[in-house]
């Protein structure tokens, strides 16, 4: 019975608040830049960078650094694996809510 508990469907990489927030923003968009994510999720530059590295390492986001109008800009987009992982996380959370309510 325990192996079928909904919490077993939660992904530790995705479930963390900031990483879940990043994937939630990216799930509804084509791509978002570093500043937008930082301000939206109310985190510091260093904190966001660390979580982006984790997601990039898992293959859930792609990070593109470029110069726009001579200023550096970092764009982040969710990969197919990232969108899939986010959808599974939401499904697991929904299953958990259904179970405990």
């Amino acid at each position, binding site marked *: 019975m325990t192996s079928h508990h909904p919490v077993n469907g939660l992904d530790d990489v995705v479930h963390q608040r900031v990483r879940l927030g990043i994937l939630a*923003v990216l799930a*509804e*968009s*084509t*791509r*978002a*830049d*570093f*500043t*937008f*994510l930082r301000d939206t999720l109310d985190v510091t530059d260093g904190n966001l960078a660390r979580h982006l590295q984790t997601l990039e390492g898992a293959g859930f986001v792609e990070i593109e650094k470029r110069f726009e109008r001579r200023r550096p800009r970092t764009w982040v987009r969710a990969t197919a694996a990232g969108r899939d992982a986010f959808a599974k996380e939401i499904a697991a959370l929904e299953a958990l809510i259904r179970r405990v309510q």
Partner: protein
Amino acid sequence: MWFPLLLFGALSLLSIPVVVWLGLGWYNLFWGVAGPTGGLLTALFYALAGRRIGLEVPAVPYLVALVVIVAGAAVAGAVGGIIDEPRLSVAGPPLAVAAGLLLIARQTRSVALVWLAGIVGAVDIGLLAACSAPTLIAVTVGFAYGVPALVVGLGVVWRKRRR
């Protein structure tokens, strides 16, 4: 959200003197040009705004809304001409606009746009049922969409500037 509200609100009010002074033919021509042009300007606005604030959203839902508006308006106008019912030619396009607004409202989660679409749709259907004069329908719908759109659009701009 303020840009399409202000743009289409202004165009709606601008369409009133067109239909009153120049007639239904010019009115249909006005919307035939202003509708798609306004839709493309809106799409361009969202694309540039997304790039500026750092959040690019998929263009497909907005393009679908634009297609619904343009195709719906064109079909209503054509059918109204074929069956010789100018009221349909005048009242049909605003219904297509209301449908497109609902699609955009769903995408942007905008309650204001839902209300606006509802007002336009209700006024339009009511006029279609009760009014026999196409020019009066055009003028009333122009006011019914133009005034709330401008008020809501200016309200959104005002709130953004206060933040």
